[in-house]
């Protein structure tokens, strides 16, 4: 942040003076607040967009199947989320470039293309699940899939083609804040708050012990909370917003608050799922639970749940499509910026529109195997996440590129290698479970 310290001959009671380039303030707290507000965005968006349709489904399933028993896992994942995304923000601020470009330039075309292909594939499959959720949720309101999915695809396109990063960011932050409604639903669910507090900090024994489905759900929660696209998205977003070196501490705060907000929202989703658990409602997706809960807690919860599901899918879809378009544009050397008009960055916008349009089109194909697609998303995500994080860790130790100021400190490395080890172990467990389905039974 370029803070220009100037002496002004202004009346002492003048607090804020708007100038043509920036705002002048005198109170230190106001300076801190405004410095934060101009930086906030990438951290909050990347975290909250991660609570996408798949995450809503996973967290609510966790609540529906195991009640409050897995809440501690979310608390455990909070620092992991923060440490990983802090590295991404630091790398983005230091280099002003996206993650895909950095892998391509420092590790060569083979690893660059490998990372890009994995990212595009997993993002595209995830996008299909976002549109499937939109179709499912709005069908409950009587809107035909052809209409709901097409309207969502058009809205997602209009959101980015205005040629203004700021406009896109403001709209998306507003959508993120809509998720505060989850807290209202959690209170309406009337959980036993003492049990919530206990389960948030102490892992307790679940009914039935450790089974294959519990292990799978734990891995799914980890996989949905730390997704590969987040690394690419936040770094590109930081570069797009042109965050400066002095913005790092505010970018860190943005990331930390985003992580806390996201974990709280995820917890609220689990509490709503727990409502189904307490009423012995079996459900396979959140829309089904919303319908079943209507007679129990009224139409407000039903309608809110369905609309929040759509909101989650829209947030996920715009972030994931942008992650793909930014990454592809970076590697191809195209103009890849939301500051540009569509005719100034045709390849970038075409990639975004193609991702959105193709995913929407696939959802509208009758009898498309959505369950297979959801499973493929998990398998692909499991494959790409450890590799993407390894590149991140190596880049943050690249002294030649970053110098002393930006590279990881030894304590960063201890934490991050531990996280990488755990993620590798979980990926192997997931793979082993795919090969040997009865491994934990």
């Amino acid at each position, binding site marked *: *942040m370029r803070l220009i310290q100037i002496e002004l001959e202004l009346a*002492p009671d003048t607090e804020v003076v708007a100038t043509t*380039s920036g705002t002048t303030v*005198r109170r230190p707290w106001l300076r801190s607040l405004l410095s934060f507000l101009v930086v906030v965005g990438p951290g909050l968006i990347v975290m909250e967009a991660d609570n996408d349709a798949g995450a809503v489904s996973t967290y609510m399933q966790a609540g529906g199947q195991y009640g409050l028993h897995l809440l501690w896992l979310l608390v455990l994942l909070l620092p992991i989320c923060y440490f990983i995304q802090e590295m991404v923000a630091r790398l983005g601020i230091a280099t002003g470039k996206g993650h895909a470009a950095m892998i391509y330039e420092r*590790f060569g075309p083979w690893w660059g293309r490998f990372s890009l292909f994995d990212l595009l594939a997993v993002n595209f499959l995830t996008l299909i699940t976002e549109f499937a959720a939109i179709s499912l949720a709005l069908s409950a309101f009587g809107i035909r899939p052809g209409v709901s999915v097409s309207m969502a695809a058009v809205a997602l396109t209009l959101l980015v083609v205005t040629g203004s990063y700021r406009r896109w960011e403001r709209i998306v932050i507003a959508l993120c804040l809509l998720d505060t409604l989850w807290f209202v639903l959690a209170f309406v669910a009337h959980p036993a708050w003492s049990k919530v507090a206990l389960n948030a900090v102490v892992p307790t024994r679940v009914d039935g012990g450790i089974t294959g489905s519990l292990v799978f759900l734990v891995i799914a929660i980890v996989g949905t909370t730390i997704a590969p696209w987040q690394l690419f998205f936040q770094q590109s977003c930081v570069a797009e917003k042109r965050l400066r070196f002095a913005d790092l501490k505010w970018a860190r705060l943005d990331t930390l608050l985003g992580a806390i907000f996201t974990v709280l929202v995820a917890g609220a989703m689990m509490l709503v799922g727990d409502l189904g658990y307490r009423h012995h409602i079996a459900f396979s997706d959140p829309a089904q639970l919303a319908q079943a809960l209507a007679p129990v807690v009224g139409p407000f919860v039903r309608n809110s749940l369905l609309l929040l599901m759509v909101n989650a899918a829209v947030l996920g879809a715009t972030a994931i499509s942008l992650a793909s378009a930014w990454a592809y544009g970076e590697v191809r050397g195209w103009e890849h910026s939301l500051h540009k008009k569509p005719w100034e960055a045709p390849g970038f916008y075409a990639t975004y529109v193609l991702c959105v349009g193709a995913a929407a089109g696939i959802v509208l194909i009758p009898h498309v195997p959505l369950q297979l697609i959801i499973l493929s998303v998990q398998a692909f995500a499991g494959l790409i996440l450890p590799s993407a994080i390894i590149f991140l860790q190596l880049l943050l130790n690249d002294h030649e590129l970053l*110098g002393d100021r930006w590279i990881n400190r030894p304590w960063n490395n201890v934490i991050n290698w531990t996280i990488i080890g755990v993620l590798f172990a979980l990926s*192997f467990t997931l793979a082993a479970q*795919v090969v040997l389905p009865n491994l934990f039974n």
Partner: protein
Amino acid sequence: MAAIHITPPLESYRIIHPLDDVAETKCSTTGLGPIKMTPAVRLSLTALRGYLVLITLMLVYHVIDLAGWLPHTR
């Protein structure tokens, strides 16, 4: 003679949105080429290759199993 109290001027700060600010010179890869193959980098990339090969083999096994080409022992 009356004492004159001079109040020091209040410090002022200008907050500029990153998009309105002048561009900074960032850490650049220009002229650096590929990353240096230190033992840590070499070991990490080797481990990653091993991981990818193993995961691919497990998935291939799963596909063959699903296709029913393996004798069922489970």
